[in-house]
Structure formats: C-alpha cells, structure tokens
C-alpha cells in the first residue's frame, strides 16, 4: 500500500530493554522525521534525515538512535528504554524543502513499565 506506515502500532516494554520502532514510506521522499507527542508539549522532533545515510539530531535526541540505510525506511531505536520515553511516536516524511507539506504515519503508542 502506498503511504507511510509505522510498526508496531502499540508496544509495551520494560525499563532497560531495547526497542525499535519502524517507519516505511513508499513515496521515495527525501526527508524523514521522528517526533514524539506528549500532553502539554505538542510534537517534538527527535531526529530527522535528509537522505539515505544522512541523519541529524532534533530537539530531544537523547536516548534514541536512528539509521537510514535505505530511502524508504527510517527506524528509531530506544537503546535502553526509560519510563520518560512513554509516548506516542510519529514518523513523517516530505519530498524536499521547507515549504513542503509533511505526511505523517499513524503513530506508535509506546509504554515503558
């Protein structure tokens, strides 16, 4: 199916465990983004990628790792999950440029116990 997908949609894990959230887009968009959404904070950028093998930190990168070996995939890894990382995570993409609209995935709700 065309579009941007995220998996899993829901995840419960324990403190200290490694978790990887997947993001896949079929548009060949150059740019991809990871956000977290928390009550009272809106959306905050974790990491972004301008192209394959190019990534950079956003506003709240600590505790997260990303990679982008292929244009269509942009996984987000929590190396050692903490309770403060309980959140809803959204992946987004756009073709190029800062005037371009971002397209968002459906989100992954992560709970860290």
């Amino acid at each position, binding site marked *: 199916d065309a579009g941007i997908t995220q998996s899993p949609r829901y995840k419960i894990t324990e403190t200290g465990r490694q978790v990887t959230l997947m993001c896949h887009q079929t548009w060949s968009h150059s*740019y991809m*983004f990871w956000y977290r959404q928390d009550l009272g904070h*809106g959306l905050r*950028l974790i990491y972004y990628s301008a192209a394959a093998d190019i990534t950079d930190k956003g506003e709240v990168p600590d505790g997260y790792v990303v990679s982008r070996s292929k244009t269509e995939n942009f996984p987000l890894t929590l190396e050692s999950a903490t309770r403060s990382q309980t959140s809803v995570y959204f992946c987004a993409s756009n073709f*190029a440029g*800062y005037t371009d*609209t*971002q*397209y968002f995935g459906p*989100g992954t709700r992560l709970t860290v116990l």
Partner: protein
Amino acid sequence: AQSVAQPEDQVNVAEGNPLTVKCTYSVSGNPYLFWYVQYPNRGLQFLLKYITGDNLVKGSYGFEAEFNKSQTSFHLKKPSALVSDSALYFCAVRLPNRDDKIIFGKGTRLHILP
C-alpha cells in the same frame, strides 16, 4: 527563542457557528506556516499552509487561515462548524533554509457541540 503559541488548550463552538483557532509565532525571518489536524488515534493531516502571496489561505474541509505579519498570527477559521471538525489542531512554523527546523504548537482541542 523561536516559538509557536496556541493560547487556547480547548475551544468549544456550537455547530453551525463560525470557529477560530488561534496561533501566534515568534521567529526570525519570514516563516512558512502550516495547520495540521489530528483525529483520535491517527497521525497528523495537513490542512493548509502559507508560503507567500495572498494573506488568506484556503485549505481542506472548508478551513481557511489568515496570515497577519504585523501581529505575527496565523489563525485558523471556518465560517460554519461541523461536529466532524472536532479534533486536535496544530499550528506549525517552518524556518527558511532550515529543512530540519519545524516548530509545532502544543495543539488546541476543538469541540463542536451539536
């Protein structure tokens, strides 16, 4: 510091009445402005954007927004609200020449009362 403010956490409007969701920003340069909507358990969806030109921008689902440079505002409006407009609305600002830098407001929950 550069920021986007949505001063109302929640807005209640009766169905059929006009609605306004407020957004103000504080950034240097000429920003690009966006409105997104989020329905329950869904990702954000694009509504409209202002890049340049006419200050009144029309978007999806009958929404429009007015860019006011002197007041640094970009309020979202609709002449006649529908119950189905009930959702969470986000204003966002993207900075010129900074592909990475998009700042979202905290969101405003819009309730349309039947």
